[in-house]
């Protein structure tokens, strides 16, 4: 696959009445925002190929996702708080697992790669069971696991947990490390992050979906956007400012 080819190419991708057209290249950050958490999650899963769309076409790294035999995990990573680490495996075993399973890599090699990824994400806790980790370390380990297969595309569902507010800058750094070689689609309410890093914004509201070419275009995006921005919690507004 050529470097400048889109890693994600969605044309007429449909969920209900809403339709989305987007092409993403490596190094690009696209934010998915909106007040309806469930609808945002559904769109993120549709874009990641984890949920079927109602129509249109979706290609990830040139492969047709809707053809049926596509395996999303081979090309993309998905990170969500609802999909935690395996509680009976220690951190390194959790991060090693995708490579052991899919690549049948030698355990020592998989372990070396896992340790490297954990360092990249800023993970500093020891190799313990997930129950012994604090929330930040848990997030970093989950991010390392999502990156284990060297995905060209990373989908992240709300990493900016309110309880992790003091560590948001570290989460931001971990998410953006290595984005020059991959694209990032992030569903978040952290408008500060969106303003600083997203090249484009997908806005989900009232069963519709709109793509904006920049933060400024999004901010001036009409009544629905204004109502959404006005309703955002103060914390996010301050961060965005």
């Amino acid at each position, binding site marked *: 696959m050529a470097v400048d080819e889109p890693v994600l190419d969605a044309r007429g991708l449909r969920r209900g009445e809403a339709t989305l057209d987007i092409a993403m290249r490596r190094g690009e950050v696209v934010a998915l925002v909106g007040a309806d958490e469930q609808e945002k999650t559904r769109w993120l899963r549709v874009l990641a190929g984890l949920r079927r769309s109602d129509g249109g076409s979706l290609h990830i790294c040139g492969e047709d996702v809707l053809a049926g035999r596509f395996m999303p995990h081979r090309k993309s990573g998905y990170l969500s708080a609802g999909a935690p680490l395996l*509680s009976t495996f220690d951190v390194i075993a959790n991060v090693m697992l995708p490579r052991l399973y*899919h690549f049948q890599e030698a355990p020592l090699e998989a372990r070396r790669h896992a340790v490297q990824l954990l360092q990249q994400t800023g993970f500093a806790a020891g190799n313990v069971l997930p129950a012994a980790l604090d929330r930040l370390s848990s997030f970093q380990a989950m991010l390392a696991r999502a990156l284990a297969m060297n995905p060209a595309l990373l989908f992240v569902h709300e990493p900016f947990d309110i309880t992790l507010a003091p560590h948001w800058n570290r989460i931001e750094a971990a998410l953006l490390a290595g984005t020059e070689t991959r694209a990032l689609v992030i569903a978040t309410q952290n408008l500060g992050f969106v303003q600083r890093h997203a090249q484009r914004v997908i806005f989900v509201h009232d069963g519709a979906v709109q793509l904006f070419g920049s933060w400024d275009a999004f901010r001036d995006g009409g009544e629905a956007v204004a109502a959404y921005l006005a309703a955002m919690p103060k914390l996010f507004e301050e961060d965005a400012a």
Partner: protein
Amino acid sequence: MRSRTFDISTAMGWTGRRTLRLGTYPLDLVVFIGDAFGAWIRRGHVRNRATRRATVSHILLTGLNALPATLLTGLAVGLTLGLPLVPFSSSLGNRQLGEFLMRLLGLEIGPLLTAVIMIGRAGAAMSIELANMKLHGETAALEQLGIDIRDFFIAPRLIAGAVAQLVLATYFTAIALFGGTLLAGRIVSGSGPELVFATIDAIEPVHLLAFVAKNLAFGVIIAAAACHGAVQVTRPPFEVPQRVQRALTAALVLVFLVNAMTALLWL
């Protein structure tokens, strides 16, 4: 306030539904087992490193860790049966008593009691582990990573269950048949190992084959019932003890039923 009256049609409906569910459960389980092994073979993960690691660790967990308890129970069962039976060796003769012990202890009670130990230990552990994984979204995480729980989690446990049951039942039966009866003979009449030799003489290849087949089947049934019950867990946390309880009861009932059916084959 609405009064609760006994309604015969509701009661019959309930009985019918329960009977139907009981009748279709073994079929469900067979499909579940076939599905897990099918996924395991289809994806070419027979030699997969991750799956192999999971299988080996579960053989050790379910088999090796239960060994001391199994050996002790085997010796106790051998003594329990040997003490009242050894005095009959003078009237029945060692050969006949040896054959009787081999059939009763070796082919019926040994596998059955090992299976009961397996259900209490490994079955409960497997069921609780998988149910909690399901409840906390860990199985969903595996699916997002493209890891199929059927061939990563369930098939290795079915194999581990079968191997562990066979190994444990072999130890249990050997210690019960030979250790227990030898000890009972010493205690009751101070006799030597003649009864043990007579028991060994009574073993034929078909007995060994039946022993292996029965224990492998028990192991698969226990692991399958445990996993099948656990994957039924949805969201409410109170479902975990309920599903685990049902899974273990189902395993117990199935093992006893299969044992009774195989006993019929010897007639």
